[in-house]
């Protein structure tokens, strides 16, 4: 087969497109299945062969809302993920600024060390943290979740902000200093506006990570401070598995963050490719 260059280009574009559609479908399929199951009755949910055509029902959703107050859990998820993200940014922006613009000999080591804390299995510190929360009376409390979420995401947030800040030429900050700006003014008028995309996408990522965090919310919360992930977990419980209801709860838990992510998509992509494009 003798194809011209432009024909060969077309063929490769097409086959790449097809391949990415297949991959996307494979990844998306479980989510699709979850959403479909949430609109089935329990019997339909476990029928073999699986049903592709059925009369959708909203029953599962009302059962979920009845059994456990969905909105309370959703509110807890919102409070913990936004609260922890805000707190983490408040700490990480000045910290990353100082690491990026006045590094010491140990800065690289500190960055690596921070990342290494992410390699520790969370269950390894479950006991001490549980006991700490218990003795301070913060079990089943959103504040303890906010603090823990802040700490587990801080290393990643620091790393991301550090790389975004590194993109800002040192000369610009020096010019700003020569213009009489204090460190705070420098952060506010130069560093923050110039890395706005990066800060926003870091914040978004942190919100998503907090929202999806399950280990700590399952282990440290119960009825009061439970987040949506704890809610889902409660459906795989003593009474046995109820696929349809579990799916309904899961769909409800995922929906807000998916919608949120959809709206912030542009910002996220922009932020994550910041370094590459500039």
């Amino acid at each position, binding site marked *: 087969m003798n194809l011209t260059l432009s024909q060969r280009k077309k063929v490769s574009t097409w086959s790449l497109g097809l391949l990415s559609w297949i991959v996307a479908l494979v990844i998306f399929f479980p989510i699709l299945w979850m959403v479909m199951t949430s609109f089935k009755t329990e019997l339909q949910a476990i029928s073999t062969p699986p049903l592709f055509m059925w009369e959708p029902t909203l029953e599962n959703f009302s059962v979920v809302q009845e059994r456990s107050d969905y909105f309370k859990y959703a509110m807890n998820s919102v409070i913990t993920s936004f609260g922890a993200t805000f707190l983490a940014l408040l700490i990480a922006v000045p910290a990353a600024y100082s690491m990026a613009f006045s590094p010491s000999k140990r800065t690289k080591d500190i960055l690596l060390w921070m990342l290494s804390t992410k390699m520790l299995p969370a269950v390894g510190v479950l006991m001490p943290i549980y006991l700490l929360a218990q003795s301070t009376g913060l079990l089943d409390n959103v504040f303890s979740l906010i603090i823990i979420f802040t700490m587990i995401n801080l290393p990643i947030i620091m790393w991301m902000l550090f790389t975004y800040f590194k993109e800002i*030429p040192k*000369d*610009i900050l020096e*010019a700003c200093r*020569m*213009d009489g*700006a204090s460190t705070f*003014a420098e952060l506010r*008028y130069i560093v923050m*506006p110039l890395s706005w995309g990066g800060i926003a996408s870091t914040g978004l990522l942190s919100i998503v990570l907090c929202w999806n965090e399950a280990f700590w919310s399952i282990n440290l919360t119960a009825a009061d401070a439970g987040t949506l992930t704890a809610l889902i977990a409660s459906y795989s419980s003593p009474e046995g598995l109820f696929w349809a209801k579990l799916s309904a709860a899961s769909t409800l838990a995922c929906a807000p963050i998916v919608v949120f992510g959809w709206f912030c998509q542009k910002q996220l992509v922009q932020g994550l490719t910041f370094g590459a494009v500039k």
Partner: protein
Amino acid sequence: MSSLEIKKLHKNFSNYHAIRGVDLQIEKGEFTVFVGPSGCGKSTLLRLIAGLEVVTSGSILLNDQDITDTSAAERDLAMVFQSYALYPHMSVAENMSFALKIAKVDPKIIAEKVADAAEILQLTSLLDRKPKALSGGQRQRVAIGRAIVRQPSVFLFDEPLSNLDASLRVQMRQELSGLHKRLKSTMIYVTHDQVEAMTLADKVVILNAGNVEQVGTPLNVYYNPASRFVAEFIGTPKMSFIPMSDDIKKLIANEYDGADPRKLTSSTWLGVRPESVTLSSQLLTKAGLTGKVSLVERLGAETLVYIDYLGEHKITARADSLASIEAGADIQFSIDFQNVHGFDDDGLRLSPDVTDNLIVGNV
């Protein structure tokens, strides 16, 4: 207008001694140029003055006040960077007004000052543009405008023209010179380009490996270089250096009737500028010295002739535009010993100053 004094200034980077005891006095309204080869510490010295680097030892005085430990933000100096360092997210007007905004100046006054500076620098029509929509020369102007608007005690420039193309560089150089005459401010300018130093400076400071090699007016450092380093650095084409020999001693004796007022015969090296070399096209003239033409550069207005003398030592000479000289030919030339400098083994000049009336502002 401000004066600046630097006393016994040292700067050590972790393992490198970049500034090695600099003493310097800069007068009110003076245009001072730090010049020297790349890596000699010009930028470091300027950044120490700016407060962007921390002094290792010594002191810096602005109007007789010690500012050694004052932060850059509080020194009231303005700096123009080689990279321009404009704020990319701000318009030209915002870039120029940033310092005043930080200083909480009345917005009306800010607007006036920005308009004035824009007028001087022909930026009025560009005030709303972002830096990325400007050409290199325009960005340079904005960077200068940002400094002018503030009316700082001292202007600091770190190789501000080196990112511009040659013709624009000449134009901006002339504009900067005009700006200094107009503002009458104290300015310190760093460059590795000795032409910029010669054309802009009231006072040239020649730096070599962290030391001040010589301070003086442009013509004074040209006519009376303190050392071989300065002599070689200032002036294009470069000064040539010839080792002392018996032949030359004889010629000197001839010229001065046995006397040696310029202490040439006790020198190890003679520094000869191209204008002190006269070529004789006719081999018959008794020119005195003979060499071989190694290279001829025809620049149009003039021709540069590089002569191998005693094998390896190149002497640069000027010839007429259309002079019929070819590489490889033998050539005779003479040297005007009145304007030649003698240097000792350490590169220090032995010859007394050339006290020609032509040297303006001799210090």
